[in-house]
C-alpha cells in the first residue's frame, strides 16, 4: 500500500526509518492488530488517529518491545533491521523512543540519575564517551528550558507524584535529552491543558530533523494543530482504515470516527 496518493509526493532517496508490513498481533489470545502497514521515512511526521480500543497503544508497545504481545504475522523493520528481534533496551540504544501514554512512576530513583543512565547507555552503544555529571547537567539544563520545567524537577523521583501534565512533559523532556531517530508519542496530548499542549508540541517540533521520524498517536485532532503531520492514518479495528494528508484529521474531527469505522479499506 502506498500512502502518497493524496498528492504529497515523497522523495525516494529518503531513508526508510520504520517499515511495518502486514503486522498481526494480539495479547492473551485476543487479536488486536490485523494487518497494519506503515512506512515512515526520514524527516517525516506521521499521525495515527483512531477510536479508543482500536489498538494504537498496542502498536506503540510492540514497537517498544513490551513483553506479552504476540506477533502472529508480518514484519517490522527499523533502519532496515528486524526490530522485533531486538530487546527493548537495544531498541532504545539504537534510537527508538516511546513517549508512554501512561508514564510509570519509579519512587526513589532520581530523575537526573535515571536520565543520565539512559543517555549514557545510548552513547556507549554508539561508541561515544559517557558524559560525567557536570557535562550531563549542562545538557539537561538546556533541554529543560525548552519544556519550561521547574528547577526542582531534576531532584524528584522519576514521575513520582507528578501531575498528569508533568508526566507528559517529562516524556518529551526525556525525548529531548535522548534525541531519538524514531520517536513514537502515544497520546502525549491527553491530560494536557492548552498551554501545556503548546509547550509540549513546541518541544516536539524542535526535535524535528531531516534525519528523524516521528509517529504521533492521538485520539483528538487538537494536537495536530500544533504538531503538523505530513501524513495522517486512521487505525480502526486493527488496520489502517484510511490514510491521507493533514486535512484528513480535520475531516475526521468534523465527521467523527464512525465515518471510517466499519468501512472497507479504501483510498480517499
Amino acid at each position, binding site marked *: 500500500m502506498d500512502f502518497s496518493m493524496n498528492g504529497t509526493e515523497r522523495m525516494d532517496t529518503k531513508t526508510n526509518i520504520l517499515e511495518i508490513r502486514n503486522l498481526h498481533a494480539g495479547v492473551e489470545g485476543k487479536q488486536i492488530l490485523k494487518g497494519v502497514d506503515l512506512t515512515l521515512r526520514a524527516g517525516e511526521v506521521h499521525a495515527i488517529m483512531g477510536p479508543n480500543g482500536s489498538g494504537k497503544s498496542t502498536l506503540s508497545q510492540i514497537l517498544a518491545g513490551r513483553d506479552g504481545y504476540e506477533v502472529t504475522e508480518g514484519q517490522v523493520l527499523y533502519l532496515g533491521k528486524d526490530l522485533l528481534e531486538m530487546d527493548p*533496551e537495544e531498541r532504545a540504544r539504537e534510537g527508538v523512543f516511546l513517549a508512554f501514554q501512561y508514564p*510509570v512512576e519509579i519512587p526513589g530513583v532520581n530523575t537526573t540519575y535515571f536520565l543520565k543512565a*539512559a543517555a549514557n547507555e545510548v552513547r556507549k552503544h554508539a561508541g561515544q564517551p559517557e558524559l560525567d555529571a557536570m557535562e550531563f547537567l549542562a545538557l539537561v539544563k538546556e533541554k529543560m528550558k525548552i519544556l519550561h520545567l521547574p528547577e526542582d524537577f531534576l531532584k524528584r523521583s522519576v514521575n513520582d507524584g507528578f501531575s498528569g501534565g508533568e508526566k507528559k512533559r517529562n516524556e518529551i523532556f526525556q525525548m529531548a535529552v535522548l534525541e531519538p531517530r524514531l520517536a513514537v508519542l502515544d497520546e502525549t496530548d491527553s491530560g494536557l491543558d492548552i498551554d501545556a499542549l503548546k509547550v509540549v508540541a513546541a518541544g516536539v517540533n524542535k526535535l524535528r530533523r531531516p534525519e528523524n521520524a516521528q509517529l504521533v498517536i492521538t485520539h483528538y485532532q487538537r494536537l495536530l494543530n500544533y504538531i503538523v503531520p505530513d501524513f495522517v492514518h486512521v487505525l480502526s479495528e486493527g488496520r489502517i482504515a484510511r490514510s491521507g494528508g493533514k486535512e484528513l484529521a480535520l475531516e475526521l474531527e468534523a465527521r467523527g470516527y464512525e465515518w471510517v469505522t466499519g468501512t472497507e479499506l479504501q483510498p480517499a
Partner: protein
Amino acid sequence: MIEGLVRTEYKYGFVTDVEADAAPPGLNEGIIQFISAKKQEPDWLLEWRLKAYRHWTTMKEPHWPHLKYPAVDFQDMVYYSAPRRKTDGPKSLEEVDPKLLETYEKLGIPLRERERLAGVAVDAVFDSVSVATTFKDTLAAKGVIFCSFSEAVREHPDLVRKYLGMVVPYTDNFYAALNSAVFSDGSFCFIPKGVRCPMELSTYFRINAANTGQFERTLIVAEEGAHVSYLEGCTAPMRDENQLHAAVVELIALDQAEIKYSTVQNWYPGDAEGRGGIYNFVTKRGLCRGKQSKISWTQVETGSAITWKYPSVILQGEDSVGEFYSVALTNNRQQADTGTKMVHIGKNTRSTIISKGISAGKGQNSYRGLVKIQKSATNARNFSQCDSLLIGNKCGAHTFPYIEVKNTTASVEHEATTSKIGEDQIFYCNSRGISTQDAVNMIVNGFCKEVFKELPMEFAVEAQKLLGVSLEGSVG
C-alpha cells in the same frame, strides 16, 4: 608454655595431641577449659566462660523467629580450631573457585585483597601489615586501644573485666550464652575520655580478623565525650565450612560519647537451592550509659542463609539517642528475621528506626522491632519507618512491630509500606536503554538511599555494588 597446655588438658579428662589445632567435636566443660588454656586466659575469664556454659545448658534454642531451618546439633560442632595456616588454604588464586573470583572482581576488590579473602596464603610482605602498623601508632598516640580480644585480655585485663558482659550478660539469650562460653576471638576497642578517634576503625585493618572464628566477640567502650566510628565485616562472600556464626557485640557509651557502628555483612548465603550457607545468630547491643550519649547502628545485610539479628540500644542516660538504619536483602532461599530494640529508660531519650527489607527469589524477610518506653522515660520519642520491597511473586515480607509504652508523655510513631518492583517499571527503564539488571539495581538503591547515606562513603559504594551482585539473576 606447651607443658602448661599439656597439663591443663590432662587435668580435664580428655586427651588431645598437643600438636592438634582443633578440639574434638562437641561441647562440655573440658572443651571450654581447652579453649581458655589455648588462649592462656586468666582464671576469672575461664570462670566466666564456665558460668556461661552452665547457664546455656539450662536454656532452649529460641523458636519464635519467623525462620525455618533444620535443628542445629550443638554436639556435632567443633568449637575451637586454630587459625588456618599457610598450608591449609589454596596456594594461589588459580586454586580458588572461579565463581568466587568473579564476584570479587565485580565488587572491585583489589587483587591482593581478593587473595586474602579467598584464604590464599599470603606472605608476610603484605600491604595491610604495614598499614596496620602505622595505624596502630597513630591510635596509640591518642590513647586509643584497638586490638584483638585475646590481646586485650592479656594487655588490658582490667578494662575487659570491667565491661565484658555489661550490656549482653551471658544469661541474655541462648546464642549469647553459647558465645560467652566458647568465643574464640574478636575485637576490643577503647576510646579514652575526650578523644575523637582520628580514623574509622575497621576490622579490615586488623589482620587477625580474617580468620576469627565463628564465635567472635566485640567490645567497644567510648568514655566521656569520646567519638568513634567502627566498620565491621568485609563486603565479599566468604566460603566457610562453618554453619553457625554466633557473635556478640557490646557497645558502651558514657556521657556525651558517640559510637557509630556500621556493618556490611555478606557471609555465604548458600546456593540457589538453599544448600549450605551461614546461620548468622548474632547479639548486638549498645548501652547509652551516659547523658547525651549516642549509639547508631547501620547495617547492610545481604549474606547468610539465615539471619537472626537485632542490634539494639538501651537508652539509659538522659537525652541519649539511639539509631538503627538497616537494609536486609534476602534472595533465593535466604531468610532473615532482623530488626532492633530501643529501650527508653532515661528522660528525653530519642530513637529512630529506618528499616528497608528487600525480598527476591524465594527469600523471606521479616522485620521485628521493639520500642519500649519505661516509666522513667519522660518525654521519650521514637520514630520508626519500615519499608519492604518485593521482587517477584515467590518471596515474602513480614513486619512485627512491638510497642510497649509505660509513660504517657512519650511519643511513638510507626510507619510501614510494602511495594513491589513492577514489570511496568522495568519495561519503562528498558525502553530508555537501561537493562533489566541495572533497572532493578537502580530501584533497589533508590529504596535504600536513606540507609546508605548513613554509611561512610566508600562503604556506601561497596554496599551498593554488593546489592547489585546479590540480586543478579533475580529478575527476568
